[in-house]
């Protein structure tokens, strides 16, 4: 009895094993889809900067679809997921943790706000997941903060301020007035822009800080007018920028000085409108009319417009380019294993959407051209055949240069 049952058990067991192996082999040969590569994007999808965040998402989706249509990356499809950080640093940290636990991303992108970049970076660093930052932040590339697999596709405020400050002094005028928002954004921009402008021979004729949330800019306007500057640099963002621009226009100050906003973007232009933008200047990481001159920009703008009906903003450009970094690193390293992927990107040169860029090996910073744009009047836009989105024309290109950033040593690298 005992012997018999033992034999029976052994036979049935081996039969079961054979059946299982056959089953696995069969399904494996047929389908066994390679696990998709997951890219998670975290950004301020609610709150005052929701529109730029949505534009980042659109570009990420577009890039993923383009890659999937060509058979994916290393034979694996790309899946994108997203989380809302409500432009709150605490929430950003929590949401990244949630994403890591539930969606197991292979790469993380984000955010749309300087203040949420470091908390996202901290969590990604802890989990050993590559993170590509796509908004301006000065600390993300320092030796103490950057993770081994962290990259920065957006420019730093230092690069932005230095490149634009130098350009302004050389091309727009030597007497500069600085009207800056009274927090990190305004102070950082002042530090880098004034230094670069002074080096290029400019003199500072005035400096005023306005509190965030100012609705009445008239006292500043009175001072700016009295200063008779060639150029007034205005570091203002969101509602502050709208109110300041309105009051500049209603006092017809553009007849007295040239007004320059260091961060200009189509997503904000659409909310501000022709009437308030006309005749003012801005610095931009991307502007869609670049498509008329640059083949990579044309490819990006055309496919984005075809899919979404509107041209991409600079935020979309950063996100799209970050997706290309993921692709290029994987194709070059032939793996998405973080250390090898990351190594493959160090020093890489690329042209994804706006001209030649490169990644500096020490700090993983993307060096890239910037653009100076000038607001058109509605009539000018209609005449140019761009009545709908032609808020600006490109009046200057600032070439990429590592001299605009702190040196590797200054950032803490050996």
């Amino acid at each position, binding site marked *: 009895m005992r012997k018999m049952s033992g034999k029976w058990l052994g036979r049935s067991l081996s039969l079961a094993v054979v059946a299982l192996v056959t089953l696995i082999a069969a399904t494996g040969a047929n389908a066994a889809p390679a696990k998709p590569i997951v890219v998670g994007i975290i950004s301020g999808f609610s*709150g*005052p900067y929701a529109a730029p965040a949505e534009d980042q998402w659109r570009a990420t989706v577009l890039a993923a679809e383009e890659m999937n249509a060509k058979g994916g990356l290393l034979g694996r499809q790309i899946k994108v997921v997203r989380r809302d950080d409500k432009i709150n640093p605490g929430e950003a940290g929590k949401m990244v943790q949630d994403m890591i636990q539930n969606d197991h991303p292979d790469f993380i992108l984000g955010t749309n706000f300087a203040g949420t970049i470091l908390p996202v970076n901290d969590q990604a660093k802890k989990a050993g997941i590559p993170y590509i930052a796509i908004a301006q932040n000065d600390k993300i590339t320092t030796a103490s903060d950057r993770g081994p697999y962290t990259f920065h596709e957006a420019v730093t405020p230092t690069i932005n301020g230095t490149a634009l400050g130098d350009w302004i002094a050389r091309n727009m005028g030597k007497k500069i007035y600085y009207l800056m928002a009274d927090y990190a954004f305004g102070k950082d921009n002042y530090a880098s822009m004034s230094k670069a402008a002074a080096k290029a021979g400019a003199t500072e004729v005035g400096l005023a800080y*306005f*509190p965030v949330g*100012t*609705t*009445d800019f*008239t*006292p*500043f306007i*009175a*001072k700016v*007018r*009295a200063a008779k500057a060639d150029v007034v640099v205005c570091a203002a963002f*969101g*509602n502050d920028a*709208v*109110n300041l621009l*309105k*009051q500049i*226009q*209603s*006092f*017809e100050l553009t007849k007295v000085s040239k007004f320059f906003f260091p961060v200009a973007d189509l997503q904000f232009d659409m*909310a*501000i*409108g022709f*009437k*308030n933008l006309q005749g003012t200047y801005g610095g931009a990481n991307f502007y869609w009319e670049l498509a008329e001159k640059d083949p990579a920009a044309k490819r990006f703008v055309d496919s984005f417009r075809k899919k979404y009906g509107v041209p991409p903003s600079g935020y979309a450009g950063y996100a799209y380019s970050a997706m290309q970094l993921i692709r290029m690193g994987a194709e070059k390293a032939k793996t998405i294993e973080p250390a090898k992927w990351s190594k493959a990107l160090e020093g890489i040169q690329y042209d994804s959407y706006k001209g030649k860029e490169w990644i500096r090996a020490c700090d993983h910073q993307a060096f890239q051209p910037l653009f100076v744009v000038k607001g058109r009047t509605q009539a000018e836009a209609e005449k140019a055949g761009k009545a709908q989105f032609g808020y600006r024309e490109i009046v200057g290109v600032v070439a990429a240069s590592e001299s605009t950033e702190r040196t590797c040593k200054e950032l803490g690298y050996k």
Partner: protein
Amino acid sequence: MEHLDATTVISQIFTGTVSGMMLVLMALGLTLIFGVMNVVNFAHGALYMVGAYFFFFTLQKVGNFWVALILVPVLVGSVGLLIERILMRPLYVRPEEDPILMTFGLTYIFMEAMRMYFGKIGLAVDTPASLSSAVNLGLFYFPSYMIFAVVCAMLAIFGLWMFQEKTDVGLIVRAGSRDSVMVRVLGLDFNRVRLLSFSIGTALAGLAGALSAPIRGVIPEMGAPVLPQAFVVVVVGGKGSFWGTVASGLLVGIVTAVTSLWYPSWAEVVVYFLMAVVLLVRPMGLFGRE
């Protein structure tokens, strides 16, 4: 102290006049409501904000700046009418703080409602093309829209004064604010007087909101800083003095504007010092009687 030339200071006095006139509209509405109903309307700032949003909305729907400008006070006045009739009237027999709490709560309801419907981001209202340039005043250019806003406010103030002084209904309103019992003894319908006063008061807040919208933008929190300033205007001017309120509104506006030239962060605080000094030296206000 930073040195600034006279032109800069004068131009700032002009802009102070503009914000001062808006405060006058607010303060006159507050005084009217307080005088007749003995209620401090804490929803006044919110109604100013509602006026700005209604202006944005009607401008979008109607497409005509002038029509919208006339419609908004009527609409906000109607909101006031409903508030008085439905929410305020049952509270007259209750303790004094009940209507105050009610209007305080209304502020939050209006603010959240606007956030839900129009979003948390500010909205921009364009000035009409005919008023979008600046006028050369000799020393400097000044936005023609701001001059227009002052003229509009002046017309409304003069109209209110004519109504209160020269019409029979206005006479009853004034009588009601001096002695409401006597008005009722004389057989007049005091409920109607209250309804009318509240409605006119809120319409003035709505007008101030609409006129300010193209200058300062439209956000849900815009009423918050304006309400306490309007209280200051009432206290400094002296309760019950029509032209005293007008003068003190201009004073508060100009003091705020000129202070902000040198110390922007002090601009909103300095008016409270002004109020404290006035209360110590002339408790009845600069132009108050008794």
